């Protein structure tokens, strides 16, 4: 552990998504020193603290961190909590991670818990992207939910999809319709494998038709995000596009990795990181509804050791502040 102590330049990337939190620490040469993938269970603050504790135990408490970047849909919350030097949207973070790893990539498919994105790259530059906006059909959380309904683990879910002999047709446009369809198929006697296989096919078709609509999808394709672990979805994508997918070794950590790389590039003079000790302090949030105007903003305060360290959620910025 003490091996790393004197090496200058370690960077932490934190990606707080809707379902999971990902953290990586890289060194000056972009080597991955530690990486972890945790479920939020609806409590991102606790999960970040837990993640910091695990990193500290792996790398040593006194591990110096020279820069922290946050990304993902809770990037602002995470940034206020840990003291980030850079806050980056997940589309850029994902692209950066892929470009470094597979510079020739032309298309990135990223399917996470609530988001699905497609990013088009040409000669190492993002030229177009799309993300689901109003509908989360076909993302990880729906697959999770269906696995739970069938009483199988999400890992098993992907394996079972591959065993489908005659995948059934499932409406994939909306998760509510998809579930109705699946239950119907189950009640008339189709096997679980065929239903799961059918669901994977329809989700992929939905993703390609909606999120990727009108986009010029060219290989090499990189498939990443939590759902890349799902063999069934991966095979369905490969079948639809008739091309194998490149799956990065750390397919679930790509956003965090990209964030870490970006903060390394930005080279903050002195990191605002509050240290791994944060995991031992009490971190809570407190919300209230402001009644100063008709908008009734839901204001959120972040408290560390009972002290307000940041406040946001107010449209008029009456309360907004962040203490370094």
């Amino acid at each position, binding site marked *: 552990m003490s091996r790393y102590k004197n090496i200058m330049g370690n960077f932490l990337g934190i990606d707080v998504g809707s379902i999971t939190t990902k953290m990586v620490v890289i060194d000056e040469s972009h080597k991955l020193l530690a990486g972890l993938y945790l479920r939020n269970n609806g409590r991102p603050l606790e999960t970040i603290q837990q993640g910091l504790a695990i990193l500290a135990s792996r790398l040593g408490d006194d591990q110096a961190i020279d820069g922290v970047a946050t990304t993902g849909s809770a990037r602002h919350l995470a940034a206020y909590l840990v003291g980030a030097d850079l806050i980056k949207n997940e589309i850029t973070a994902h692209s950066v991670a892929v470009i470094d790893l597979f510079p020739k990539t032309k298309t990135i498919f990223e399917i996470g818990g609530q988001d699905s994105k497609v990013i088009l790259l040409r000669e190492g530059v993002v030229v177009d992207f799309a993300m689901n*906006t109003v509908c989360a059909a076909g993302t990880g959380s729906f697959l999770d939910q269906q696995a739970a309904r069938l009483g199988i683990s999400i890992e098993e879910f992907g394996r079972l999809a591959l065993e489908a002999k005659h995948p059934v047709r499932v409406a994939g446009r909306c998760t509510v319709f998809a579930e109705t369809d699946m239950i119907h198929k189950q009640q008339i006697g189709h096997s679980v494998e065929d239903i799961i296989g059918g669901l994977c096919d329809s989700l992929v078709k939905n993703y390609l038709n909606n999120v990727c609509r009108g986009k010029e999808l060219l290989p090499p394709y990189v498939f990443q995000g939590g759902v890349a672990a799902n063999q069934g979805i991966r095979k369905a994508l490969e079948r639809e596009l008739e091309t194998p997918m490149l799956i990065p070794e750390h397919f679930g950590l790509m956003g965090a990795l990209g964030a870490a790389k970006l903060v390394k590039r930005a080279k903050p003079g002195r990191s605002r990181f509050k240290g791994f000790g944060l995991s031992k302090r009490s971190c809570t949030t407190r919300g209230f509804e402001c009644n100063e105007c008709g908008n009734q903003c839901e204001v959120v305060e972040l408290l560390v050791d009972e002290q307000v360290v940041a406040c946001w959620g107010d449209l008029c910025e009456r309360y907004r502040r962040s203490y370094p």
Partner: protein
Amino acid sequence: MKVTFPHLGTMHIFCKAIAEASGIPYIVPPETSRKTLTLGVQHSNECICLPFKIILGNFIEALRMGADTIVMVGSGPPCRLGLYDLVQKVILEDMGLHYRWLTIPPRLTWQALWKNYEETKELKKELSWKNILLFPYGLRLGWKKMMACETLEKLAMRIRPREIQKGETQRRLKKALSMVDEAKTLRTLDQALERGKRLLQGTEQDVSRVPFKIAMVGELYTVMDPHINRGVEQKLGELGAEVTRSSWFSTHILRSLRRNKADQASERVRFFEASRAYLGYDVGAECNVSIGEAIVRAQEGFDGVVHLMPFACMPETTASGILTRVGKDWNIPILTLILDEQEIEGRIQTLLEAFVEMLQWKRKAG
């Protein structure tokens, strides 16, 4: 009699001016808030679009505050927006709210004038001679206020990407607009506008920046109202883009008055003509203009186009499909944002940030 009108961008400022200057009592609905949206959602069909729900919410709040006469712009099919006034009337009546309705015709036709005459027959009885005599002055003041608001908003769009302190332009714009709002006469309005302009120009700026040029196109309510689009215009500006849009009140009013000679109206004709390469037919509402404007902006060397539409909006869904082709053919990045009642502000921020960053990469790559 107490008139009310929906919130839409700065519309309440000039509607209020018309009523106030003519001595007609009015109620400005409370600023569009979560409560407005909740009311609108609760009382409308689930499948209807976001602008409808928000405007309905505005009316419910205003009527509950004591307004009894609603002034609303009508337009006409094929877009559902054109039938807003008719459907909203039915909903409000079902809710047991009492009011009178005054539709401002979208096109000056005999039929519209007759409808208007019928609607105003009752109202006229309540208006005094003073109200009627002052009305032309009110209209003039309202028109000038509308133009003043547009001038200030356009100025803010230019300054925002250059501001040093993020958010300062927006704070100053708010103050400047309220100065225009407070002006009571034509003379004080001129002064207020001048003071407002100076206030905005006083924003500390970095003039060496070369902002990206982005055009906002799409369904007009979504483009014009920051509550409906969650402040896309401001967000893009603060990310370093100089935003342009062709949808303004003056554009749409001049269009309906068929003042085609005005620059703005002829601009729309140009957009419409440009869309012919992709559409041989007028789809209705803003569809053709959205497509045509994207093409014209690409020709003018803009860096990108942001296309706004409410979820399930028919004309703009058509436009969004064609815009992907336009983006490819004209090599201009186009981002379509679909807005609905969900809290998707974070998601919009993510998409806009990524969009502007993409433009940065593109610029760097030459």
